[in-house]
């Protein structure tokens, strides 16, 4: 698989937000890629920059306040950050489409489902633009049937508030798939729903992307979902990619202290009660910790972690990478630890 060129390749991307009183350094030079047909998971706690990364890929971050000081986002070899408006419109929808986190806020409240869905289909490609009204309507009905929504005719004339949360989420999925994208970004689908509905929606999504052989980025903070559905997982913490590994490997042998903490925080039916999780919380983006952004909460923190941002080290082989000084060459790690004693 690694011989292929990635469909999406992000290199050293930073995103800052200029706000009143300073600059929020949210993304801090991340690397991220997706191969064609691959299902990639992205996990991390709320506020770690997952959604910001995805919005940056589609260039829908509001600028200002967002600024991108450095980095490249390559979609099929073309830099998204330098694309013309025309190219960008081609990429959005047909190339990449996205299911937003909260289906309630992701649907326009004053337009019917039909008006929104039909606009998405009409603008998906120049060919679609020439289709007749009834042909577009036909496509819209199909898109709703595909996500197992009965009575599409009534739905097309309904407004979002007339639908239940689960139905809205299905509509969002149908809308994102209606453009037949090569890469689908699913941002915590179903988090806003109750558990049983969430399960149904996720199964549906999984079935659809399997059938259509799509590349997928699945953002979630539910590790169980990642384990079931993805090939490879990125772990993100406070605007940094801290670890990436094939899914099985990550769950068998989490390397980064943060990943280990995440795994330990999952409550298990067989385990002894609810775990304590990782103490502390995500640091401020205004003045993020110098060095490794996790060192303030890390049980293994060494003096070097407060000075330097850890580079990426390899664990076992190229597929498993981690940004943590604990995985430096063994003699160096020894030196880091002695330094700690000296202090």
């Amino acid at each position: 698989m690694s011989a292929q060129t990635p469909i999406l390749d992000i290199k050293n991307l930073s995103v800052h937000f200029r706000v009143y009183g300073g600059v929020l350094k949210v993304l801090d030079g991340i690397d991220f890629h997706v191969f064609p047909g691959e299902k990639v998971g992205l996990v991390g706690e709320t506020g770690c920059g997952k959604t910001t990364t995805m919005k940056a890929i589609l260039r829908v971050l509001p600028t200002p306040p967002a600024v991108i000081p450095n980095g490249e986002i390559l979609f099929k070899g073309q830099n998204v950050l330098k694309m013309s408006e025309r190219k960008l419109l081609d990429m959005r929808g047909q190339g990449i489409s996205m299911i937003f986190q909260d289906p309630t806020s992701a649907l326009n409240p004053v337009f019917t489902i039909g008006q929104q869905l039909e606009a998405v289909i009409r603008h998906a490609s120049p060919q679609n633009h020439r289709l007749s009204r009834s042909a577009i309507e036909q496509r819209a009905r199909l898109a709703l049937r595909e996500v197992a929504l009965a009575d599409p005719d009534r739905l097309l004339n309904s407004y979002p508030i007339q639908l239940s949360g689960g139905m809205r989420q299905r509509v969002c999925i149908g809308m994102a798939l209606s453009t037949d994208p090569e890469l689908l970004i699913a941002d915590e689908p179903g988090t806003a729903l109750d558990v049983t509905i969430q399960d149904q929606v996720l199964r549906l999504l999984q079935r659809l992307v399997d059938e259509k052989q799509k590349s997928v980025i699945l953002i979630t903070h539910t590790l169980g979902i990642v384990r079931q559905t993805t090939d490879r997982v990125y772990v993100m913490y406070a605007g940094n990619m801290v670890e990436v590994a094939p899914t099985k490997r990550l769950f068998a042998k989490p390397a980064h202290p943060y990943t280990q903490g995440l795994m330990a925080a999952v409550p298990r039916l067989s385990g002894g009660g609810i775990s304590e999780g990782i103490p502390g919380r995500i640091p401020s983006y205004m003045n993020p910790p110098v060095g490794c952004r996790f060192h303030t909460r890390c049980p293994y923190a060494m003096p070097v972690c407060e000075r330097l941002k850890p580079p990426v080290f390899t664990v076992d082989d190229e597929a498993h990478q981690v940004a943590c000084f604990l995985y430096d060459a063994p003699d160096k790690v020894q030196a880091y630890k002695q330094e700690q004693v000296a202090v």
Partner: protein
Amino acid sequence: MRLVSLDSLYRFVTFITQRLFQSIFVLFGLSILIFTIARVLPGDPARTALGARAPQEVVDRLRAEMHLDEPITVQYTFWLTDALRGDFGDSLVTRRAVTTDIAEFLPASLELVLFAGIITAVGGVVLGTISAQHKDTWIDNVIRILSYAGVVTPAFIFAIIFLLIFGLALDWLPSIGRLSEGIPKPPVVTGLITVDALLAGQFGTFWDAFQHLILPGVALSLGSLAQEARITRSTMADNLSKDYIAAERALGIPDRVVMTRFLLKPSLIPTVSIFALDFAANLANAFLVELIFNWPGLSRYGVNAMLRKDLNAITAVILILGVIFILVNIVVDLVVSALDPRIRLRTARSD
């Protein structure tokens, strides 16, 4: 589909009927209030009307004729009985039926306020949209400063400045009255000279009347225009960061379409509500503008009536303003519910 439209037609008729029924009570209350206020004000209307040198017995006769010597409840009963028959009494100043006066002056004011309303709506939404799309740039800042200036400056200041610059110094536009001398008046259909002229096909008259409208219309509109621009700008800027806008853009809908359709519609709702208030307020604000441009409108008539304690005229003018206020609000509620399905559906459910 057919069923749906019948259903909405039924809701529409119910809504209108309910609102009109409610407004009867509003107008009834308003009439009592204004009737009382007008009569407890100091000063004797009969004396004012006849002048200081009129003999006392003449004044007393007029007082008796106007029932001013009776208790206020009896006076009100007399007034109401007449009013229900469409007779609002005579004006003490013009010595004509108040209804005749209103029929003459109301269209002039309406024409002015409607014209100002059009400028307000179009200008406010356009400036607000431009401002929101260039949020926090120099364009936004320039529009913001101009808007603040517009909001804080009373209409009569603009009126005087426009009159001096464009009317007198540059002489670009006419600044007195509704029509130039020698231009024939079009046959009265609506009472709005521009509309009547168009209906009669008199384009020369239309052009002249239109030119007369520009200075007072713009002067009157600037305050509310600035207000609308601010509100449109802030709602739009707010909505611009909503997820649904990001979603629509992310799914490949061009920005042009997102901005002019998917962002504009939800952002217009507060603007429309404020517009109703501004429109009604402009009817009253028009007084000084009408005075400055010698515009024969209702506001000027109303204020003169108040200064002279012309009881019947005061009551009738206030009631007419009340009726217009109610109608404008009904229209705005209809527009808002057409824009916002959440309001429409909530009312439907509560029925």
